[in-house]
């Protein structure tokens, strides 16, 4: 392909840096996107892919570094600049107005005059040309709400092309698509490439990288760790590079003493309003005295699994047995009932779910347990008892500062997490669900939290840990289940767990 000459890169990034507070999201990244190619950027969540693309699209400003488009140094102060330079972005979450037609969405922001009619007519002609040139046919008069998700995405792509983009960035485009729709998307991308459009595909799915791209950059912890021609590499190598070989955190664990089954999920499924299958026939058993780790890339159903198990969302099908109680779609549990059965839940997003930022720590320390003794007596909350309870939790879980009257939001992430964990473990639950136990938590607190989870296990609790940190899963779990696309695609023993196989399973390479 003639476009691969080094002189005329469609985009070149040089030494891009970006920090958010103390988080160094992108560390001196340089990369080239050749004209008329499909370039993949792959990496785990938090590797810096999306941040990098947001900088390219003018949504964020880089702290340092240069952006070159077609061999010219440019300034990207806003998406307007990016569009002016022929860069278009298709976001993971569509930016379409449901009640408008395709055509109306198309002219949004480019109406062309006081009266719509002229702009609409021009857009209709342009849409017909795009459909002819790129094979992207969509009924211009269809309402967005009536289109399938795949078609909506096509409208997003058309919108970008309509604004004259020659460089197309797609952020996790297949996240909401069925496999068939994904294949169709890739055929479209192929056509676009043949017509000279450059495509950047951001994804964490290796199968898509291998199927669609010409060249791939692997990012990890804000760095580009490697650049490869797709033809010269394979899924195994990319998985290894993406996950990164690291030593396990050493954790002293007594041998597992498996007890009775405390939680069992059978054929559990969850379908959302749009008909997307979030959980698909999940089978799961959790025994007393074990930690089961669920590995997987974010967005493969782990969050939904936790919500269903905790009673927050009712399942669409299947059956759930918690400590002998059977629950299903017709008799869904609710979080209060689950707690009464002996299930505790440390949610994935502690700020949004696990606590109330504006509450005092002591108030946060009883969230979910406020009804009944020991905190409520004679219909009144026992303030001193709540305060004493919080002080005890803070003492035993080393929450700093030890001030029950301090607002919850004034504690650091690690201390917030310890407080939430303490609250849930203090009730000596039979089943403990933990989502992302150490997300946003400093290293000292990570060790502490891990030890407490093992302690709970040794006390006979059945622990389920969902984490995107593979190291965490490997060091904590007695059994590892891998989730992909709403299914549990495999089980691995941590002793024999091999990061490469795990990475492959997580990326759906086996399931493909």
């Amino acid at each position: 392909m003639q476009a691969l000459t080094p002189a005329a890169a469609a985009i070149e990034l040089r030494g891009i840096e970006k920090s958010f507070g103390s988080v160094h999201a992108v560390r001196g990244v340089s990369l080239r996107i050749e004209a008329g190619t499909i370039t993949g950027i792959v990496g785990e969540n938090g590797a810096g892919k999306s941040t990098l693309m947001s900088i390219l699209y003018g949504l964020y400003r880089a702290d340092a570094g240069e952006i070159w488009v077609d061999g010219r140094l440019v300034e990207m102060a806003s998406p307007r600049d990016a569009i002016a330079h022929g860069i278009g972005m298709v976001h993971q979450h569509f930016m379409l107005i449901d009640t408008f037609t395709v055509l109306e969405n198309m002219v949004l922001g480019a109406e062309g005059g006081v009266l719509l009619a002229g702009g609409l007519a021009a857009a209709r002609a342009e849409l017909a040309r795009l459909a002819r040139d790129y094979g992207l046919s969509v009924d211009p008069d269809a309402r967005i709400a009536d289109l399938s998700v795949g078609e909506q995405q096509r409208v997003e792509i058309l919108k970008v092309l309509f604004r004259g983009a020659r460089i197309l960035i797609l952020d996790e485009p297949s996240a909401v698509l069925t496999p068939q729709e994904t294949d169709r998307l890739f055929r479209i991308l192929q056509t676009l490439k043949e017509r000279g459009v450059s495509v950047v595909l951001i994804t964490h799915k290796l199968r898509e990288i291998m199927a669609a791209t010409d060249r791939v950059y692997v990012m990890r912890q804000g760095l580009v760790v490697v650049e490869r021609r797709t033809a010269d590499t394979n899924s195994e190598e990319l998985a290894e590079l993406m996950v990164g070989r690291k030593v396990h955190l050493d954790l002293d664990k007594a041998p597992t003493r498996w007890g009775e089954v405390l939680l069992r999920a059978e054929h559990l499924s969850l379908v959302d309003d749009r008909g997307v299958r979030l959980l698909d026939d999940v089978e799961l058993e959790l025994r007393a005295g074990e930690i089961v780790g669920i590995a997987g890339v974010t967005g493969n159903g782990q969050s939904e699994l936790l919500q269903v198990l905790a009673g927050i969302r009712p399942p669409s099908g299947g059956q759930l047995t918690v400590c002998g109680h059977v629950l299903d779609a017709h008799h869904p549990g609710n979080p209060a009932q689950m707690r009464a059965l002996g299930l505790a839940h440390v949610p994935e997003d502690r700020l949004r779910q696990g606590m109330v930022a504006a509450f005092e720590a002591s108030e946060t320390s009883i969230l979910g347990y406020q009804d009944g003794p020991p905190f409520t007596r004679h219909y009144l909350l026992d303030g001193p008892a709540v305060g004493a309870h919080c002080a005890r939790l803070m003492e035993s879980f080393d929450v700093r500062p030890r001030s029950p009257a301090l607002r919850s939001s004034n504690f650091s992430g690690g201390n917030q997490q310890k407080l939430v964990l303490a609250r849930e473990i203090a009730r000596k639950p039979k089943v403990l669900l933990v989502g992302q136990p150490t997300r946003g938590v400093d290293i000292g607190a990570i060790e502490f939290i891990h030890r407490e989870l093992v302690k709970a296990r040794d006390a006979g609790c059945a622990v389920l840990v969902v984490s995107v940190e593979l190291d965490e899963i490997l060091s904590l779990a007695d059994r590892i289940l891998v989730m992909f696309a709403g299914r549990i695609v495999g089980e691995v023993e941590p002793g024999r767990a091999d990061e490469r196989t795990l990475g492959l399973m997580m990326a759906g390479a086996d399931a493909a």
Partner: protein
Amino acid sequence: MRPPRRSLSGALPVWAEVALLPLVNIALAFIVVGLIVAIIGVDPFHALRLLVVGALGSSESIGYTLYYATNFTFTGLAVAVAFHAGLFNIGGEGQAYIGGLGCGLAVLALDRWLPAWLMIPIAIAAAALFGAAWAAVPAWLQAWRGSHIVITTIMFNFVASALMVYLMVNVLIAPGSMTPQSRTFAPSGRIPAMHDALQAIGITVAPSALNLSILLALACCVAVWVFLWHTPWGYALRTMGHNPEAAVYAGTSLRRMTMLAMCLSGALAGFVGVNELMGVHHRIVLDFPAGYGFAGIAVALMGRNHPLGIALAALLFGALQQGGAELAFEIPTITREMVVVIQGLIILFSGALAHLPRPWLQILFARRAS
């Protein structure tokens, strides 16, 4: 007492947040009011003196100030309870109206047979029930149907108003009466006036509209405070207001909590009917809510949604109402409408523009600290 929960930033000390900011707001409002008063040719300081004396100068004027404050306390608490649940109840006006209908109906039905000690509690309960029921419909529409409560509560004010006119003109009008009002309540259906109650224990004050409903208002302040901060339901209600997802996580049904919060809110607003009809008019009349429901929003905002703050804000609003009436009486150029403008400005500065002086205060405090 706890510090207020709502603040945009933590840069100000608590005392400045609670006391200084509202005072600066009121001062700003008075400066603007003073300018307007000067423009229409009245000495602002003379007007201010008349206002203060009119509100607090005699036992009669103090009585009226407290009587108005009673109404403002009820509606202020009503707005605050809903606000703590993350709901904006703009239907206080209609809920007060229908609450009045409730207590009026109870009295009309039973006052000839029941003694006062039984009649009054029943009528108060009826006011609460009717007010709650009027708030329950918008609450239900939001919880189950997703209709926004701001829209529906406003609509329900109009429905309440039309319904009351219909009932008063066609159904409840006293036989032979030319004005749309019910027959007079029997003595057992009246709440004793404060001057009579005080007379009974040997204290003489000038007669005013102030009646023992003010004790109900004070009891409501305490009850709301206990409910919100010292019961598990109040805790769950505040959790929902701050973070609905956390409330779901904690096992609270958002629908049921929405119903609970709005019903409590409506019941509190309904007590305006007790003060007005059983305490003053002694019959059902038209238009007695007279804007108290809307003013409750400003009272709650100014009182930072805390019962103590609401009681203080209600006092201020009561004083303005009473002092303003005196002002209009004493100075012919200051009409009744002018007084409404003055009240509106104070509401504007302490409600909608409550955070206007915050950046200046922040700069001031930052400079002093450095």
